[in-house]
């Protein structure tokens, strides 16, 4: 079997009982202090093939940690995780052929031009450079980025422009599973639209599955087939946007449902009450 192909029946992502704890060390005077905190506390999840799963959650709730587990960049303390039936630890190399990630911070060599960065990416993923450059130019045109921006050091581009290049770079490798960690954060409304259209297009044209972390409720509602809400390392609700709204905020919107599910509305009410008293 070609190592790039996947079994058609496999679920795209499946994981159970995922725990991840981090410890940070720091020196307080002459004493070394170790603080431990859980980023994930027993997460189970399943993403169907060709599905776009949204992950919503407050800052520090464990979204990026979960994405990193899928991206083979972190090893869980407990539990297992499979991408198209392949274990992310044991079959790491084969999983890597199937995935790509766009992270919040566009990770580039900032002194190099977009073309040079893309050449590096193409090399790592076994795509010919000539093909990669043509493809990237096409993708970036559809995202509304002018050609000449590809020839200057990336540090001279705005965050949104860099983010578009990051998206193009990920798509070049035709990933079967695309991990998008806040891909539209920092983009202007038009660019955000462009990227969202593009994501929907990619899903239509290619056979790809996506996991999308976002803080933008409208984006989640527009793009995602299902949404998982994560809070303090636990997934506390999963469903289609319509289901979530119906169950938790009838008459309201996704944002109301989000506040309700995470208990943030209660906290806010309490804070307001305390503020008054």
């Amino acid at each position, binding site marked *: 079997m070609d190592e790039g192909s996947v079994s058609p029946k496999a679920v795209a992502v499946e994981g159970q009982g995922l725990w991840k704890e*981090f410890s940070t060390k720091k020196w307080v005077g002459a004493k070394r202090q170790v603080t431990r905190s859980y980023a994930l506390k027993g997460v189970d999840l399943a993403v169907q093939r060709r599905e776009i799963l949204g992950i919503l959650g407050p800052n520090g709730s464990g979204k990026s940690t979960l994405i990193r587990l899928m991206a083979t960049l972190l090893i869980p303390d407990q539990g297992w995780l499979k991408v198209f039936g392949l274990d992310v630890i044991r079959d790491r190399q084969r999983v890597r052929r199937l995935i790509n990630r766009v992270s919040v911070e566009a990770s580039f060599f900032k002194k190099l031009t977009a073309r040079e960065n893309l*050449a590096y990416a193409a*090399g*790592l993923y076994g795509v010919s450079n000539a093909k990669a450059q043509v493809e990237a130019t096409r993708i970036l045109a559809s995202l509304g980025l002018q050609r000449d921006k590809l020839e200057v*050091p990336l540090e001279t581009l705005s965050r949104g422009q860099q983010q578009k290049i990051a998206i193009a770079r990920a798509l070049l490798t035709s990933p079967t599973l695309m991990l998008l960690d806040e891909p539209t954060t920092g983009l202007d409304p038009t660019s955000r639209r462009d990227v969202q259209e593009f994501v929907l297009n990619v899903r239509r044209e290619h056979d790809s599955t996506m996991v999308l972390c976002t803080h933008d409720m409208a984006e989640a509602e527009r793009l995602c087939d299902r949404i998982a809400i994560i809070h303090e390392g636990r997934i506390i609700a999963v469903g289609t946007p319509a289901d979530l709204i119906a169950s938790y905020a009838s008459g309201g919107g996704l944002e109301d449902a989000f506040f309700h599910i995470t208990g943030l509305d209660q906290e806010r009410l309490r804070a307001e009450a305390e503020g008054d008293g």
Partner: protein
Amino acid sequence: MSPAGRELHALWSVVRRNFHLVRRYLGWELVFLFYNVINTLTIALIAFALPPADRDRTIIYLTIGALLWNFLSILFQEVASSVSWERWEGTIEYSFMAPIHRLTYLAGVCMYAVLYGVLRTIVILVAVALFFHIHLARADWLGAAMILAGSSLPFIGLGLIGAVLPLLSTERGAQATQVIQGVILLVSGIYYPISVLPGWIRWMSHLSPATYTLEAARRAILNGEGPLHLLPLTIKLFLSGLILVPLGLAVFQLAEHWAMRNGTLKRSG
């Protein structure tokens, strides 16, 4: 693309990426090169404080030390700082998530280091030769080249072990590689015979591959000893490389695994 072709393609793209970076930092490259040339010249000029009879030999003795140290420290530094550099740029997760063998990535870094080190050393060599008009009629260049090739391996191995440290601890790791480099500089007899070192550190000289490299290079260039004479030393160097490179790779992979468990791969929380 065949799997092997894919890995080669990836290896080349790592080398190319680094040369692109050199091109972008060209101003700094020229400044460092200028400093290196001056540094080598000033060290060789020390010989002019000696009686004329010893002068030529000492110039060459010191120049060999300066050139080799220059080459070996580039090798060590480029390999050892590859991880901290990518972490600083914020590309480390991208590079490490790529579907290539870690060996390929590291081989790319090492190959770049060797090419870059050779290029810079040649520039300095030419500058020194023009400045001093030294006579190297006795030198056996084949022997010298053999030594250089033999010594690259153990230095790459040391570099790989050094590269691991920033994976374990962001800042302290990078600091530790500097300390290691300093100790190698002290004990390897770069500008003096190791016999001048105090007894309590001299034992370290025998552990440093640079000690053997320098000894052999001086025998080739100053005494004109040919490849045949130098073979035992070259084999020693080569064997130490055969131990250090796989050891470095194994340690690297262990450290990467550790970093993936502890979340130290990326720069910030």
